[in-house]
């Protein structure tokens, strides 16, 4: 009995010592803090990224995503503007809410590349000379507002050197409809009997007065500079949007493909030319062209 009591007493003392030891260890060795700290460190990767620091991190990511999307949008805008192939596309792609910005170089490239005098009517090349005289013309800004199109010639700071206001009607001028398509005349819907050889037509164009020449055929330089080799000319059975016009298709070969330049030509000029070809070849081209729809379903 006595030994049991002594044992119990010793047991109590040991327990007390143990508790005192634990207390001392915690007080001097901070084993609780260390243990919990290291356990949490070990478990760190399993826990969620919560709290203000991570929130800020996420906000920074959102901000960078926004910056990136804005840059992508601007790059896209820039690239699509720089990839335009035809001067009239500058205006056709213009939506009221989406102005267009092109470099001076691109504008001039499209301006002088247009196969006809329409671009000259939008803004004369002499006016461009004046705009360029201060050596600060950098970009061209095009914006549509109601029935008006503003062409702003901007300097490096975005300040307009000159602004030109065009009526949207200008876009519908017949001259503006000169377009280029890939393919052969037949694929564009030109009838075989209305397709003529280059020599037949060019020899007649040569004899026309300069104004009519410009109305039916681009400057030869336009083909020569690009290594476009004119092969045949077709006259469409159809009129363009204006009932007084028919469509000429000038087919040319390049090293890689065949293309057709479509030109809307006043009916009387076209008939006059056709009659001359008829006189030359005796082909049956006397019948007046009927009313018309455009090849490939496109309306001019």
């Amino acid at each position, binding site marked *: 009995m006595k030994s049991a009591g002594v044992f119990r007493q010793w047991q109590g003392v040991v327990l007390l010592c143990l508790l005192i030891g634990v207390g001392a260890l915690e007080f001097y060795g901070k084993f609780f803090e260390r243990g919990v700290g290291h356990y949490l460190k070990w478990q760190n990767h399993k826990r969620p990224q919560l709290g203000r*620091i991570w929130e800020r991190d996420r906000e920074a990511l959102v901000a960078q995503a926004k*910056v990136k999307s804005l*840059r992508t949008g601007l790059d896209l805008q820039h690239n699509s503007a720089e990839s335009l192939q035809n001067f009239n596309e500058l205006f056709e792609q213009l939506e009221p809410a989406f102005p267009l910005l092109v470099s001076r170089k691109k504008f001039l490239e499209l301006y002088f590349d247009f196969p006809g005098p329409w671009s000259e009517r939008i803004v004369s090349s002499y006016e461009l000379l004046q705009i360029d005289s201060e050596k600060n013309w950098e970009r061209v800004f095009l914006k549509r507002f109601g029935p008006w199109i503003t062409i702003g010639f901007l300097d490096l700071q975005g300040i307009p050197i000159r602004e030109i206001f065009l009526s949207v009607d200008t876009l519908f001028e017949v001259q503006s409809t000169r377009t280029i398509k890939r393919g052969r005349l037949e694929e564009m819907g030109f009838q075989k009997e209305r397709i003529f050889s280059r020599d037949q037509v060019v020899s007649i164009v040569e004899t026309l007065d300069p104004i009519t020449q410009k109305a039916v055929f681009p400057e030869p330089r336009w083909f020569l500079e690009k290594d476009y080799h004119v092969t045949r000319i077709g006259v469409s059975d159809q009129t363009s949007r204006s009932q007084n016009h028919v469509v000429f298709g000038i087919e040319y070969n390049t090293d890689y493909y065949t293309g057709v330049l479509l030109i809307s030509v006043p009916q009387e000029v076209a008939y006059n030319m056709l009659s001359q070809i008829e006189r030359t070849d005796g082909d049956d081209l006397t019948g007046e062209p009927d009313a018309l729809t455009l090849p490939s379903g496109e309306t001019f």
Partner: protein
Amino acid sequence: MRPLIEKFYFVLFGLFLFSAIAGFGVYLTLSKDLPQLPENLAAINLSLPTEIYSSDGDRIMILGERRPIAIEDISPNFLNAIISVEDSNFYDHHGLDHIGLARAFYMNFRAKRVVQGGSTITQQLSKNLFFSFERNFVRKIKELLIALQLEATFTKEQILEAYSNQIYFGSGAYGVEEAADIYFGKRAQDLTLLQGALLAGLPNSPNSANPFYNLDRALGRAGFILKRMVQEGYITEDQKEEARLSSLELLTPKQSSNPNLYFVDYIIRKLEKDYGKEFVHFGGLKIYTTLDSRQQSLAKKAAISHLEALEAEMSERESKEPLQVALVSVENKSGAVRAMVGGKNYSHSQFNRALSNNRLPGSSFKPFVYLTAMSELGYSPATVVRDEPVVIDIPGAEPWEPKNFGEEFAGDVILKKALMKSLNVVSAKLMQLVGPKKVIETARRFGIQSPLGENYSLALGTSGVSPLEMAAAYSVIANLGIYNEPYFIEKIEDFHGNQLYEHYYQGIQRFPQKLIYPLLDMMKGVVDAGTARGIRRMGFHHPAAGKTGTTNDFKDAWFNGTTKDNAVSVWVGYDNNESMMDKRGRGLTGGRAAAPIWVFFLQKVLEGKNKVKFPVPAGIKFETVDVTTGRLADERSLETLRVAVKEELDLSPLPVIPEVPEPEGEFSASPDLFSIPENQ
């Protein structure tokens, strides 16, 4: 005795077990919400700041700026001070200070709410990085657990460095480097003992102990911290006394002297609305604004100095609200907002009165009425209208009886003279003739977007507009009809300089030049010899056009005016719509309260610049006419005025009416002889 000891052991052991189980249970419960720690504490400060620039290249604001520095670059004066006051056992504990915690528990238990933190520096860092500032026990435990992990993961130096770079010191300063710069204009490594002690007192009470606003309290706290440093053995008593007697070299607060805050505040809000908060604060952007620092500073000086002069003249009032002011300066050729003052003092009131459309423009709205009459009725500045008592019937309401400012009537008077004298009756008559709808249409074409009441009293400016709208509208007049939408941001670049946004001028011809120039000339008359002639008396000699505006009971005073290059709108009034009366009982008019600010501002802006005239468009002629007949002046004219009219307008003098015998019978004089001249 023995059972008692046994009971004691049992309770002790039970408590130990209970604590262990409870602790484990709490951990299991909270572990789901415990946040992950980043790998590197130094990386937590790396979000890019957004910088805002003026058009003249000054950096006017930095958003989200953090200037983290290494612990070696922080003065020991600060480090020792912050340890002494915030966590004297910092180098001894492992995230938990038992004695501090026990003291806090005791205090909180007594108060039955959380009144004391007892947090270590590590716990404070844990709170700053991850948790809300709400005080509750759950957050406290989470904060402690993270603090323990911080201690197990990083060295004491890393923790102290992160803490010093993170904490808020008031006045917009995060981190010791920025605080040292804002309060003392120096680097954190150069802080003196007193400065270090003062800064160490700020994290605990960044507002109430802010030396800019409560220097005594800040110094008192610095004294306490110096005492703690002596107790902790960091400094000697002599060093403490030396520090107390040293000069603090406190700077003047940057915030309150920054004149750009209304402007900056507006563009931040606008960008947040358009692109999102994150984009603005974490995008690392460079925002190039239209603000001209020089103009802005001159605008603020002009506004404040005149307001102070006016306040000295004002009668005693019950309300202590100060007189307020708004000013907007718009560059005519582009629409760029070059200066904007939204109130007297941004730190007292952030409400931007330059953009708010709750104040009535009074007579400064009249130009839109006159232009509508010229456009719709073919009137010209030489058209005669009779200024007389008039009652205008309003269906469904009391008839309206407009009165002139002086309650006098001028009789027959040409439009130019009527605008120069700001005759209300003439304006009301014009409104009655054209109808409010047409006037609203005109105002919209001038760019006024605020809601406008479709009623006759609109002739006297009874619908609220903003100074920004008025400045932009008056710039249309100076631009001869071209409207440029006012804008604040030229371009935005990302951190690498890639362009994200660019403003393009898009001027739109809203009115024909031949229509708008006569109005411009009439408004030049207002400045040269009309209600704003005080401008000339104050020595402003540049060609200018404008219109004063004063509302009923002198609640609002306006002057909107333009030179060739700048359109400036100034408003003065009380926020609570009180009348502005001086000690002699006279009310403040636009000419007296607002026009001088306009003059002081533009006089400085145009200092040393040539006087530039407004261009005269083709098809305009100038004629001197009789102000009562509107016909070319002749020897019979008692008062004449030079007017600008369309070239095609015939202003030949009225033929002299021959004296004819009294008609007999039913015949009378030919009505043609007395008919209104063609231009009327």
